[in-house]
């Protein structure tokens, strides 16, 4: 079997040690880093993403695959010239001010990282200013907010309005989620989109940033 195909298959199996070894071998064989990434690691990860989307595999398998992907990716990073390294996108996430329930938000963070996004997790009880300032200063693509409580839903609206006033061009998109959030709620407050669970949130964020 071809080396890159072996990388893809080992990644799909979640075998991070094997992916690490094979990537090392590919580098030693002077295969171009972009080829190792595109035709090895990303091919495997795309299969995993599709299987996950079709509910053929579940959270743990995706996370194992993601761990394996990073075992390869971390070796490739230094080989890319600055700015050439493909970047899926940057997402600032947090549980909004007044709410300390962060399990769902954490799961979204884990899954976003697994899907190759750069995630800046602001934690819980995050004031509106923090979301907006971080997103602008870090040049993030998306702000993701979560809440479990109905009382803190309006806080999300504050973030969205603050973002509009600070950056009217709409460059930074917003996604919200949590028990009280529905499509209607998201639309009413002007969020770009919403996710009903971690897997769905990742799908929506992918749509927001487009293919890269």
């Amino acid at each position: 079997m071809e080396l890159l195909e072996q990388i893809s298959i080992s990644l799909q199996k979640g075998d991070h040690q094997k992916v690490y070894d094979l990537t090392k071998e590919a580098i030693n064989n002077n295969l171009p880093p972009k080829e190792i990434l595109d035709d090895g690691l990303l091919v495997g990860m795309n299969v995993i993403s599709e299987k996950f989307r079709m509910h053929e595999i579940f959270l743990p398998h995706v996370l194992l695959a993601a761990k394996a992907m990073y075992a390869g990716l971390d070796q490739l990073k230094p080989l890319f010239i600055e700015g050439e390294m493909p970047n899926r996108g940057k997402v600032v996430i947090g549980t909004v001010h007044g709410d300390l329930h962060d399990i769902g938000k954490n799961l979204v963070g884990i899954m976003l990282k697994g899907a190759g996004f750069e995630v800046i997790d602001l934690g819980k009880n995050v004031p509106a200013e923090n979301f907006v300032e971080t997103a602008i200063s870090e040049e993030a693509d998306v702000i993701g907010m979560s809440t479990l409580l109905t009382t803190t839903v309006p806080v999300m609206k504050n973030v969205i309005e603050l973002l509009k006033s600070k950056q009217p061009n709409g460059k930074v998109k917003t996604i919200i989620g949590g028990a009280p959030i529905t499509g209607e709620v998201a639309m009413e407050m002007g969020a770009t989109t919403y996710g009903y669970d971690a897997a769905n949130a990742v799908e929506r964020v992918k749509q927001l940033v487009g293919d890269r």
Partner: protein
Amino acid sequence: MRPKLKFLSEDLIRQIVDESVGILCKLGVELNNVEVLSMLSDYGAEVDIPNNHVTLKEDIIQKALDTSPKSFKLYDVSGVETNDFSGYKVHFTPGSAALNILDYHDNRIRKPLTSDYIKYAKLVNGLDHIKSQSTAIIPADVHDKISDSYRLFLSLLYGDKPVITGTFTIEAFEVMKNMQITVRGTEAELKEKPLTVFSACPTSPLKWSDVTSQNVVDCARYSIPVEFISMPLSGFIAPVTLTGTLVQHTAETLSGIVISQLTNPGAPMLYGGSPAIFDVRYETTPMGAIETMMIDCAYNEIGKYLGLPTQAYIALSDAKQLDAQAGLETGIGATLAALSGINSISGPGMLDFESCFSLEKLALDNEICGMTLRMLEGITPKEDFPTLPRLEELLQEGHLLISDHSMKYLNEEQYFPKPIIDRANRPRWIDEGSLTLGERAHRQVKESLDQYSSNSLSDDVKKELVRLMEKEAKKYGMDALPARDV
């Protein structure tokens, strides 16, 4: 630790058994079969042939119990063991012999056809928690006189799992036995590896018809297992109290054990039944009544006390559709039966007082069975002492989703039902089409049928089965069997 449930103290069981033995020795049973009466007479029972009556004796009953096997196994058509009826092991099998099928497309009942039976047999083949087929529906497109053998024929032609079945006539036994010998190869191999269990139903109170008593004798001669299906109805044709019903059930079942064991000591049997309370308001026999289920679990305890493997018609419902009642009665029944250790649990798929079968319900019930079987695994430590390192890992990593410990035990510790059981949050449920339980079950049925390829019998064996069935059908004026190309 396997969780267990008990309704009866050992003292009460002894009292019930003693009382029922006393009844058999004083009142006896009506038995409408001269051959069986003569045999019992030979063993010292007091027989009144003109009045079709026999009064048993304590030593005869004891002799029969002494030779009753404590366990037996069933094997699929290829001879692979599937059911071990021993101890507290439980196996689910679909409910049996429904006159109607609930048609998914218009949600109405109708008479089942050959095509329905074939779909049923194919579906059962793919259900992992259903360990045997039953001849669950009675195809209405063949002559009445072959509707029993025809069910077994279709089950053997399309399914792999052993078959819980029975005859409606004395004559049908011959071809049903021959079909089994065809599958196994020889009579001895059939005896070695039983393929079917035949239901044998005494008539309450305390009666055996010519057909059913002969059937017990015929099965015993060939060591084909039987399950005794005594059906006392509390408050109507049995005492209203659950204890009184149990006494009557015990007496009727013991009389069956005597017929079997005197015919062939050691012939395999299940201590079974289908008792029910009688609901005087509706004049019905609710199988989903909690008292009915309690009687089932309790007679199973009596069966175990007497040293026999057990069976019951439980894990079914009296609902007319796949609704909340269908789920709750089936779920409660499956749970109680499993906790009680009823070895063969007959019920999944059945609705409407055992008169209506639903393929969608069978697919749903398979998931109920899966959950129940998980429950029986109990709670067992798996590298849980010490738990400290796990929590250290959790604090460091933020989650245990891909911890080695999680990956090792996830599928052992948690049973994941198919999507008939809705575990999506509401938005995802909406996103996936807002499907009702019935729609999800129907989708699952279709998927299972799509996955079916064929059973493992050779073409030669199948040809011989067809020949036997066609010959039997001709006896009753049917020149051809219904088409099977569905």
